[in-house]
């Protein structure tokens, strides 16, 4: 997140898909892995050996069994099949990421454009509010939400989104400000074209291109944040097969029953890597100024 804040990425033109993929192996790998994760989640009910274990079912006499033919990833502290839960977990993380980023865009873009385009007092006030939220540790907000509204995926999503939008506001503001300063925009204003038209036709499309890359890179950051919050008990609750929650629950057993922690954690890592590679690849492709990876 920090490195993206410091390296500007201007817009470029997308090339033909196959050629692009061939020239960017990391993008290909990232796209493939991301696809695997999404498909695993989509087809979980078919792929999973014990689908009921992703819901309310428990098997108190089969707890903490090591990996075997019947349970390739072993069973957890409630006797539930871990492979099943890992597969179903693939539905949750990308979904949270999509929701968070959607909310962050819906809130952040209009604010950023308003700040950049109108400037002056509006800009100052909006930027100060943005700064306050930027300095706010995401954890505290998530805690408050969890306590007031009880911990859940929905509330975690909201909490993370609330700490995410400031980054986009900042990003969009910079772009909007530079677009607003361009001559044709000034000319349009002088001619009396209404603000709304200028905003929709010119400012908006030119401001959000860096955002596209940013969003794709942020997917894995959101997934990591959400799983950290679940790890702390502030997010998804049992029996939801959220990976962070599974690592958290397995923590006290992990020196004696390592499989409770290893598999869900590896899933988080794999997913985060997949979307990072995808984001990196997209950035390479959309920014012709960069030296391409060979």
């Amino acid at each position, binding site marked *: 997140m920090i490195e993206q804040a410091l390296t500007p990425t201007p817009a470029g033109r997308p090339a033909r898909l196959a050629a692009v993929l061939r020239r960017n192996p990391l993008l290909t790998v990232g796209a493939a892995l991301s696809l695997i994760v999404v498909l695993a989640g989509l087809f979980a009910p078919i792929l999973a050996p014990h689908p009921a274990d992703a819901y*309310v079912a428990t098997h108190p006499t089969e707890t903490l069994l090591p990996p075997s033919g019947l349970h390739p990833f072993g069973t957890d502290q409630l006797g539930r099949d871990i492979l099943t839960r890992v597969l179903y977990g693939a539905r949750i993380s990308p979904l949270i990421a999509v929701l968070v980023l959607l909310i962050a865009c819906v809130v952040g873009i209009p604010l950023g454009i308003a700040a950049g385009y109108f400037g002056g007092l509006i800009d100052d006030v909006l930027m100060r509010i943005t700064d306050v939220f930027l300095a706010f540790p995401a954890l505290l907000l998530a805690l408050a939400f969890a*306590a007031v509204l009880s911990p859940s995926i929905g509330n975690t999503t909201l909490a993370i989104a609330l700490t995410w939008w400031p980054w986009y506001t900042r990003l969009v503001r910079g772009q909007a400000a530079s677009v607003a300063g361009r001559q044709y925009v000034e000319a349009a204003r002088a001619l009396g074209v209404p603000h709304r038209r200028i905003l929709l036709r010119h400012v908006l499309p030119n401001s959000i291109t860096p955002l596209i890359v940013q969003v794709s890179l942020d997917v894995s950051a959101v997934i990591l944040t959400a799983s950290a919050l679940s790890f702390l008990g502030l997010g998804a609750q049992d029996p939801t097969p959220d990976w962070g929650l599974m690592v958290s629950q397995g923590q006290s057993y992990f*020196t*004696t029953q390592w499989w409770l922690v290893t598999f869900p954690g590896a899933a988080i890592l794999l997913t985060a890597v997949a979307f990072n590679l995808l984001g990196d690849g997209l950035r390479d492709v959309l920014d012709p100024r960069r030296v391409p990876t060979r």
Partner: protein
Amino acid sequence: MGVQRGGRRIAVMAIVLGVLTVACHGTSTGKSSPSAGAGATFTYDVTSQVMIGWDPATGYSNEVIAMNNMYEQLTRYDSTTQQVTPLLATSWQSSPDGLTWTFTLRSGVKFHTGRTMTSEDVKASIDRTIKLNGGAAYIWGPVDSIDAPSPDTVIFHLKYPAPLDLIASADYAAYIYDTRAAGSEDLAKWFEQGHEAGTGPYELDQWNKGQEIELRLKAFPDYWGGWNGPHYTRYVFRVTPQATTAAQLLRSGQVSMVERMTPQLWQTFQNQNGFTTTDDPSWQTLLAMLNTSYGPLADERVRQAVASAIDYQGMISALHGGAEQISGFVPPGLWGHVEDLPNPTYDPQRAQQLLAQAGYGPGGKPMTLTLTYVQGDADEELVASLMKSDLAKLNITVDVRPLAWPAQWAKAKSSNPADRQDILLFYWWPDYADPYSWFINLFHTESKPYFNLCYYSNPRLDHMIDTVESEAATDRHKAIATYKEMQELLLKAAPALSLYTQVYQRAMLSSVKGFVENPAYPNVVFAYDLTPG
């Protein structure tokens, strides 16, 4: 790259490598040897900070595990014999009406401050405890006044009959201390600075607040019990929140005994040479309080259905030895415990029948229940998940809410009954060795809920609760019969489910001999009673 730059890089790499090499040698995994000639040291590994407060009158937290070695009460409860035994008092008797209790004190007892203990000191410390009214001071509620007619006699005058010998053995608020220890200074402030003024076998040597080796105690030379024979002369409290750390320290011999670790880690010490393991039931019982005043559980049939729907054995098996089913509400080791009571069993068919009678179950009205438990407690989380799963089979949806205790409690005490939970999971344990605690706190009618979080109100039960304490003061056998009757009543009405009692799983070096678990003093290790091997 220029030579200089390259050279600098190599130097940096060398430093990094150097640090790593040094690091790999500097681990502490060797066995430590007790310092020769200085007597044996008992190191107790605990999971959280010990000295939360220092005032023996108001201490109500983890500090009691240390205070019970620095301070003493008039009496002590022995859970193996279920008797009250002498400690600072050698004998006592109550008047036939249970309103006057006379205690004869032990002579030759010295405070760590040097003074000799007399009845004036006993009166002064208990008076002060009552006056400060903090922590567990409520246990002295029955006391009207205290007299000290002679240096070795203390007389308690009570407002109503109560088993004062049991009260005087309490884990909290019953210590006898030197009220003149601070001289002209404020005593409370003096205590909080990290001082103690007890009569117990160990006195304070060193306190390192917030450090891993938090507390060091040393033998008090003038202890009335004397130091003949092998004894631990030093007592160290070491705080390691992580169970894995504790296990490692025990394995390498750096600690003598571990307060608590996970059942899985504890099993790795069972039947191992060089280690001894114990497991004994505690008096900390887990209860599921069912809302008898509002919602579907107000119907007794529904409550009984829920009681039959829980797979109790499965729960115990999933806890891997950390819990034990008990008969009734009073745990074993405490008088008032009754073995053959009509306890609920796992009977899903009976549950279904009862639900159908009440109009619920498959085909009937849908039911959603809200269950709250203490956030962060892994055992309660497990139990909640199991209950949710068990009840789901009967078409009952359980909405599980983990809450921090203050939030859970606030919700249970909401003035609007619709805001309260249907099922509340929490632990209960007595402040002194008396089953009365469960009944007066949890099941007595309350106009505004405090701890009766099943909101149960039964005048017949109230009457029995109101009379059982004076029975306990005058005729123990009659009291036991009353407790049996009360438990039978509660098991039938099912306002709460007594799910299990926690099991203390301790692991220690085999050189530690003579350890006997005493659930009346949770997690307290009386090192004076141990024999170093």
